[in-house]
């Protein structure tokens, strides 16, 4: 116990907190692993042409592969979070990397479409789910002041890697056809494993507060532990529920431009090249937005939740303006609105995750992120078919974009109902259950087992508590 004290005290007195140093190495690891998860997912479209020809299936059947992969990644996020709470984060991430690679390697041997759903969809999706949320939570735990900047830098990898992966995948498919290309992609995905190894040995293992005894692997105690690892009690807290609902509404409309902007531009009358260029330009400002918003948020002039509301409102407004701008037939207007939309959508991405520890506290962040991903995924699945349906009914994309933008703005309005929204300072996040008095003496073995790791959490939490209200206006 006392051994940890001087460590903790130095951390508390240090004034730097966990920011910086090794944290930036972890940001680099998150950069690489995010690019290998989402950047890779975004560039899978290049394989679809090959699949359509080889398997003689419709484009819709083929597009289910990436939908399955994304859905699996989001569905298994709570599982990844729970496993990290129960065991060592680094091994979870390394296992996830191996699974993702295994899925792609097996996919290279596929002989029918169902094989692809199971391998590229389920297995790789499971691997990605075990990688993304734990890595994000680890990076966020390592930063307080520069948290949003760290996240923004890491997430900029998605846009940058899609730029790099598209021609790379094209080359691989030309040289080795899709089987060989998938095999090599599996190898590339293995690079997630060193990223996980960089996390280092577990600093804390979240001991469930309710475990009474070590023995007894009864169903009830297992369920209790599982529910605490998954942070299921969060689902009953109003701030978390409100925030999750807001982000889900955001998710319904957020992806619609990515799916439909090119088609909409072509329908309005622009050429293929012009439409693709609009998309690329929006992607470029997306990258800028992530980094810029991360840097600006960490300056501390405004509360993160307020900044997030601003970006989401703007993004929603620009989505609604997209069909309006092209009404006049002016390419410049469409380009400007798309650039602004790209910037805002990138800006809000950095903040969405960074706000979570404000609401639930750093120690519950892992499970909170997992649950958030799961719930928002359901909303995301709703968005694309809904907008497609609207387009089929009305004949053009105006209604789809209007509804999408409406959902985004609705998400902002939901966020406004968060408790303490209109306060000038961030409220302190809820404290964890374990005791946080550093002056307690020696305790019984059991209590020490529970409280010693969570002391670290508390101190991190305390640092967060002490920092934020002051830092807001520093």
């Amino acid at each position, binding site marked *: *116990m*006392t*051994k*940890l004290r001087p*460590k903790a005290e130095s*951390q508390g007195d*240090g004034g730097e907190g*966990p920011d910086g*140093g*090794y*944290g930036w190495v972890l940001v680099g690891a998150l950069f690489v692993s995010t690019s290998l998860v989402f950047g890779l997912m975004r560039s899978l479209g290049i394989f679809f042409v090959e699949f359509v*020809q*080889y398997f*003689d299936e419709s484009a819709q059947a083929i597009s289910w592969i990436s939908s399955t992969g994304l859905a699996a990644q989001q569905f298994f996020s709570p599982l990844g979070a729970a496993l990290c709470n129960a065991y060592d984060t680094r091994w979870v991430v*390394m296992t996830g990397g191996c699974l993702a690679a295994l899925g792609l390697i097996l996919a290279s041997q596929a002989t029918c479409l169902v094989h692809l759903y199971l391998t590229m969809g389920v297995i790789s999706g499971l691997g990605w789910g075990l990688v993304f949320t734990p890595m994000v939570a680890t990076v966020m735990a*390592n930063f307080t002041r520069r948290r949003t900047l760290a996240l923004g830098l890491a997430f900029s990898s998605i846009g940058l890697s899609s730029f790099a992966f598209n021609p790379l995948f094209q080359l691989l498919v*030309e*040289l*080795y*056809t899709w*089987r*060989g*290309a998938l*095999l*090599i992609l*599996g*190898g*590339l995905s*293995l*690079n997630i*494993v*060193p990223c996980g*190894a*960089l996390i*280092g*040995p*577990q*600093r804390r293992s979240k001991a469930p507060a309710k475990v009474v005894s070590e023995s007894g692997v009864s169903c009830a105690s297992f369920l209790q532990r599982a529910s605490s690892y998954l942070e299921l009690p969060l689902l009953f807290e109003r701030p978390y529920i409100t925030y999750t609902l807001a982000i889900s509404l955001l998710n319904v409309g957020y992806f619609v431009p990515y799916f439909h902007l090119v088609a909409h531009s072509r329908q309005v009358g622009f050429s293929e090249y012009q439409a693709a260029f609009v998309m690329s330009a929006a992607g470029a400002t997306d990258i800028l937005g992530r980094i810029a918003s991360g840097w600006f948020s960490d300056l501390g002039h405004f509360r993160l939740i307020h900044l997030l509301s601003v970006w989401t409102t703007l993004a929603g407004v620009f989505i609604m303006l997209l069909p309006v701008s092209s009404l006049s037939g002016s390419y410049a207007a469409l380009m400007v609105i798309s650039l602004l939309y790209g910037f805002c959508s990138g800006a809000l991405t950095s903040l969405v995750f960074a706000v979570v520890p404000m609401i639930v506290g750093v120690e519950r962040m892992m499970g909170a992120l997992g649950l958030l991903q799961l719930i928002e995924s359901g909303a995301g699945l709703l968005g694309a078919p809904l907008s497609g349906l609207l387009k089929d009914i009305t004949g053009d994309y105006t209604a789809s974009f209007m509804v999408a933008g409406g959902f985004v703005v609705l998400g902002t309005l939901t966020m406004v109902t968060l408790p303490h929204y209109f306060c000038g300072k961030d409220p302190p996040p809820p404290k964890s259950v374990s005791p946080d008095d550093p002056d307690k003496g*020696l305790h019984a*073995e059991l209590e*020490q*087992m529970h409280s*010693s790791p969570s002391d670290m959490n508390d101190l991190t939490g305390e640092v967060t508590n002490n920092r934020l209200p002051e830092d807001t206006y520093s």
Partner: protein
Amino acid sequence: MSASWKQLCLQILLLLVSCRHINTKTPGPTPPPLIPIDQLPTDVRSVALKGESHTEKVELLNPVNLALECTWTGNQDKLANITGLWRKDGEEVKNSNQTVPMENDQYNLKRVFSIVNEEDLGSYTCEFGSKAKIDFVLAAPQIGDVRDKPIVSYVGDFVVITCKMEETKPEPSTWYWYRANGTDKKQIIAAEEPLRYEIKNEERKTKLVVSSLVETDGGLYFCGAVYAISTSMSHVELKVISFHEPLKPFVAIVIEVIVLVAIILLYEKSQSKKNSTAAENGTTDQTNTLTQGESNGPAEISSMRQRKV
């Protein structure tokens, strides 16, 4: 005497009838013209030349009597008469040399050609002296997008090669596939080797499926869109590679990953050993408070310490 003469005549006649025109080109599947020439439909193409030369593309599907008209407004010389000439593929058409008078401030050349089979297609040129000419390029619809990169597949796998006729062009009556054999083309007949080849024809698309690939299957494949007048060809190159090819970069990447992970884990171990010895040399009374639950405390703290750099 007359009987033998009659017999000779009959034999010669039979010989002439049974003799066919020897075609030195690769025999295509174009059927011989069934319609007598004078019953062919007629079509007209006319071009008015403004400059010195012009090329006009003419797309033909069926045998036709094609009337080609050339009109030229003349140049500054404004000669009363000019020599007009027709050429096919650069060679002068017999009896086409004529004198063309200027009528209504222009020169007119017109001729009807019977376009019956593939040899009649090509480039027809009307020339006005050596001053102006108009090229009519007669061809069956050509296959638009020709893939310039080779299609790659693996030994033992199957490959699908497609050919497509654009929507804007008329449909061919059928499709045929050929394989390059030296400089020749050998037709692929799926019925002969049903386990290896399969041809799926739709109106505008055709697919050749080659199964159980071996290395020798690589090379040029030709698809032919058959029209009544001729067959348009397009080619695709097939490359067959063994699975060892992509394995090489894959194994290289796996080795790189293993090396990285080993470096990271070894570095960490060495750091923790250093720090744990340093820590243990410190306050020994603190080690007394170590309990079972904190047995990994030093390792944690040392690794914590290195994180706080």
